[in-house]
């Protein structure tokens, strides 16, 4: 029996809800996680007590808002073991973070013929920005070959890394396969040829301890809403030496230093990359989420996520007519599966009638679907508020789905 790590009905109001007469079983945290009381309270408290714009005025509310926003940046910085809070840029989410690196770093440093190394399992957000920067600069995409179970071997990475490799962009944990990619080793190879390592941490930062220096990364992108934070806030972390050289891509608000009619100069990092009023309450909510996760313990969360992922993987494999994707061990908190002859949308629909929320579709990873040879899959994903009971209900629902469609 794998138990939730928190008192779910106390911390997560949404789990007190019944859907179609059943209590909610939420297995879609890879799409977005739920938000605990302390996160909702932190944002509410900000609006009720200290609401003001940041960096702008000298009145008390503005001082409080500015201090809270700066403290949120420090909280993020500590959480990912960055050397300086200035390396933390607030964005809307992973997608904006990756687009920022691709456009700012990519357009500036890529030359025709330079190579960008990707994997075919990348989320569109870590793939299409690179296709586009390649188009703009004449750089070339090189895809790592996946092993049969969808994992990445260092040998396969070696085969695509060359002296022309300028960027490798890779997810730490796949949102479909639940596989864990060997970032440290890839980063080593990339650094040996003078390239930079961009890590899509959308699925890893919520689920495991993160140390950007130990990870050997140059950039790390992640989203608040997948780690108990609100929507509309995310992070790009980057090494100070890169950020200092990079040009901003959005202009206006507090990102400038001097402006006249003809020209402008930029503020320092991180403001340089944060034009316009930021999502202040969002940053404060994300910091509260980090405090909440830290209190539980990222090691415990990592262990729990993996235990559920591996348990679900093993159990699903036992059901005839069900295919499960990705590696057996280690297997993180997302498990993709299909049932012979039943479309994933129909699976999700039957599940919903029992209040089990999963996702069906291509999971923003069409090249991976093409590699797997399927149009779409069902996906169950877990977080620390799930238990092995939830997996039991998932298994029952699969049997019921088969009965329903194979009558």
């Amino acid at each position: 029996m794998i138990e939730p790590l928190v008192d779910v009905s106390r911390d997560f109001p949404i789990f007190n809800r019944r859907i179609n007469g059943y209590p909610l079983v939420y297995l879609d945290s890879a799409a977005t996680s739920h938000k605990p009381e302390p996160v909702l309270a932190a944002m509410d408290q900000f609006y009720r007590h200290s609401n003001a714009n940041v960096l702008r005025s000298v009145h008390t509310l503005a001082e409080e808002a500015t201090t809270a926003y700066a403290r949120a940046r420090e909280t993020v910085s500590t959480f990912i073991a960055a050397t300086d809070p200035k390396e933390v840029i607030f964005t809307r989410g992973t997608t904006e973070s990756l687009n920022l690196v691709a456009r700012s770093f990519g357009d500036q440093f890529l030359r025709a013929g330079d190579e960008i190394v990707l994997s075919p399992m990348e989320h569109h957000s870590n793939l299409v920005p690179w296709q586009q920067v390649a188009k703009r600069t004449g750089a070339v995409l090189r895809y790592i070959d996946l092993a049969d179970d969808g994992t990445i071997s260092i040998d396969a990475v070696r085969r695509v890394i060359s002296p022309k490799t300028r960027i490798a962009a890779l997810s730490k944990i796949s949102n479909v396969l639940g596989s864990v990619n060997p970032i440290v080793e890839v980063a080593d190879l990339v650094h040996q040829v003078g390239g930079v390592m961009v890590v899509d941490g959308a699925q890893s930062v919520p689920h495991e301890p993160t140390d950007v220096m130990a990870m050997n990364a140059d950039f790390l992108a992640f989203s608040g809403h997948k780690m108990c934070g609100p929507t509309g806030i995310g992070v790009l972390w980057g090494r100070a030496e890169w950020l200092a050289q990079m040009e901003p891509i959005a202009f206006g608000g507090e990102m400038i230093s001097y402006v006249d009619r003809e020209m402008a100069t930029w503020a320092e990092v991180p403001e340089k990359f944060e034009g316009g009023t930021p999502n202040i309450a969002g940053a404060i909510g994300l910091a509260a989420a980090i405090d909440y996760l830290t209190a539980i313990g990222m090691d415990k969360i990592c262990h729990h996520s993996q235990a559920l992922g591996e348990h679900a993987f093993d159990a699903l494999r036992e059901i005839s007519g069900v295919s499960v994707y990705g590696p057996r061990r280690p297997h993180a908190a997302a498990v993709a599966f299909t049932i012979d002859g039943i479309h994933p949308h129909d699976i999700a629909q039957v599940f919903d009638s029992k209040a089990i929320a999963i996702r069906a579709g291509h999971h923003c990873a069409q090249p991976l679907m093409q590699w797997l040879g399927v149009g779409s899959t069902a996906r169950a994903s877990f977080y620390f508020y799930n238990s092995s009971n939830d997996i039991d209900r998932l298994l029952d629902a699969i049997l019921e789905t088969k009965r329903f469609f194979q009558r």
Partner: protein
Amino acid sequence: MSLDDLYRETIMDHNQSPRNRRSLEHPTKTVGLLNPTCGDQLKLDLRVQDGMVVDVGFTGHGCSISMASASMLTEAIKGKSTDEALALARHFKAFLTGTPSPVNLGDLEALQGVSQFPSRVKCATLAHNALEKALSQD
């Protein structure tokens, strides 16, 4: 609403034994459409002569709703004028948002339950959108 109300017998039947699921040899119009949410694909072939849909076929993959809907649609428009076919598509889409149809929708009426599920409406109307796109090409 219950699953049986959504997945009516007629839908299950069309899904298991789709009508007109084939490519035409000499189509006069062909349209491929994607349902971007789920990656489903549908190709609709039409043979139109003198303003009449003389033959129609579809291929692709998708959920039971989209495949059954395509099957039903092809059955309903074969032998109809292109104007009638377009009207049918329009009335069906309105029907899914709650507007009663002035023309007989035939088997397509079995898809009524879909209107409760906004995201499935895209599935149920994929073939109809392909038809509209095909007949607006000239």
